């Protein structure tokens, strides 16, 4: 692992922005893990007397309509939002990469089916598809994850297919096949690990979109079930209060959302530089 670390140190020094992204990512991880412990108040506990108070020493981010502490809710929400993002990205990766690699490797019918499926989903207006799924299956967290995963599926399938296609006749694949490995072993054991770097870059980029998607669903009322704390819902709730002057209810969850998406996008760029210099686009 040493060369990769040294290599990573080189990229970080050359590119401070990626350093910033890793710092942010670490911060979000800590918030996700220790959120409930660190939160100064119980995020679910309403308190009519303290409703709609601006940011103050007692409540850093102020309080919402039911008097709940927004700072605690933003902190605790990190876990839910990251889980939604990670779960949907991993699910999309599994669905997309496996079918993509199979399509790229076997070609012929598999390729055509996966290709057409990806096209159909791409042709579908993303947001309506997500809404349809969540409206049909109910607004459980798992459904939001499935909806977001299906939307990102074509992205992974397409990239995986292209990479697998390129590597299908590569030397190491030929060697693996000649040394008696079955088709699936070649696919999973050799081609898939080889395209992992590119996949990881895709995953980090779509992490950002996954969170935005969950937030968008909440804005039109199909998001996570109340009273759970989730950035999207909090921004949606706060939206009605911007006009009447309580700007902080929507602002802080919005900022957290922005920072997270921002961090994942920069992370994607950074990962790409570290893993695959050729791909310095």
């Amino acid at each position, binding site marked *: 692992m040493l060369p990769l670390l040294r290599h990573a140190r080189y*990229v970080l020094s050359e590119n401070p922005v990626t350093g910033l992204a890793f710092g942010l990512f670490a911060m979000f991880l800590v918030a996700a893990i220790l959120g409930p412990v660190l939160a100064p108040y119980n995020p679910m506990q309403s308190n009519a007397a303290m409703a709609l108070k601006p940011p103050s020493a007692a409540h850093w981010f102020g309080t919402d309509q039911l008097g709940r502490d927004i700072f605690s809710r933003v902190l605790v929400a990190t876990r839910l939002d990251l889980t939604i993002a990670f779960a949907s990205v991993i699910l999309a990766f599994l669905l997309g990469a496996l079918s993509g690699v199979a399509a790229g490797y076997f070609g012929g019918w598999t390729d055509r089916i996966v290709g057409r499926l990806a096209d159909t989903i791409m042709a579908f207006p993303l947001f309506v598809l997500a809404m349809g799924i969540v409206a049909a299956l109910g607004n459980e967290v798992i459904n939001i994850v499935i909806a977001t995963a299906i939307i990102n599926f074509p992205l992974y399938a397409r990239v995986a297919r292209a990479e697998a296609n390129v590597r299908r006749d590569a030397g190491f694949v030929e060697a693996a096949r000649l040394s008696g490995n079955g088709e699936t072993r070649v696919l999973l054991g050799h081609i898939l690990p080889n395209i992992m770097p590119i996949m990881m870059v895709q995953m980090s980029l779509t992490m950002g979109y996954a969170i935005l998607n969950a937030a968008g669903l909440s804005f039109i009322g199909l998001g996570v079930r109340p009273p759970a704390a989730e950035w999207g819902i909090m921004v949606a709730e706060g939206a009605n209060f911007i006009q009447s002057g309580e700007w902080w209810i929507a602002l802080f969850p919005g900022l957290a959302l922005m920072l997270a998406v921002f961090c994942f996008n920069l992370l994607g760029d950074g990962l790409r530089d570290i893993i695959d*210099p050729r791909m310095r686009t």
Partner: protein
Amino acid sequence: MTAVPAISVPALSVENLSVEFRTRSGVVKVLEHVGFSVDKGETVALVGESGSGKSVTAFAVMGILDAAGKVTSGRAMFGGADLLALSEQDLAEQRGRELSMIFQNPRTALNPIRRVGRQIADVLVRHGGATRNDAPRAAIEMLKRVRIPDPERRAEAYPFELSGGMCQRIMIAVALACRPALLIADEPTTGLDVTTQAVIMDLIGELAAESGMATIFITHDLALAAEYCDRIVVMHAGHIVEAAPARELFGHPRHPYSAKLLAATPGETVSLESLASIPGGLPDLRRLDLPPCRYSDRCERRIDRCAEPLPQRTVGERHLVACWNPL
């Protein structure tokens, strides 16, 4: 290594040129104290294995090094000025007008979505070789000079519609449009078949002779160099190991590496079986403990003095060698 200037006027004289590349895995000392000169009307070959620094030398002189490259020392005197010291604008003024360059794979070295005629016209207009509206005519004129049949129609073609040889002629037209004093040809014929190779080399020779242009011909093909060049400079791992007139070097190579190189070059006099490969490979130029003579690890004639700084010994008329134990 600085070559002693002969009687005629040098078009270009490179002295003590060193270049470094900052890469992910450390600093690579690509060139170290490179020096040679080229006279007006003379053709000099820069010969060596790939990765020996031939092209980097040319890029350094032209000022089109990669962003990671940095010239750490040396001068390149051309037309009374040191090219390495010029600002980007001034150097850009010279490039394509006083000195120009042609490259290896011609088809990718031309703009794929722009008609070839327009690409020649661009250089002419840029350097005042022609006004904007009669540049097309001048470009067609240039195509005639490089003997391209049916130039009016060909000028409208795109690079992917032309053969490799044809593209190389276009490149030459672009380079020589403003009649430069120096042409650097970086393996111009490597990508071409043998017959086209000869045609291109003759064409360059003719055009050089017409205008007394100095030519630097970079190649790894010693036979080609022997046939078309007046003098040969042999490079190994960023050093100039030997420089001599072509016949002198072929007749009596003094540096062990030159001899090995000759032994590895197929030709009429050398039969296939007797071809000997050169043991070992180029040293890793990132090493901090590089010996003064970078060939010593592979040299059978290594002696203790080889550990001392390299000498520059004159062993004949314009024949120099950097070796303590020459042949």
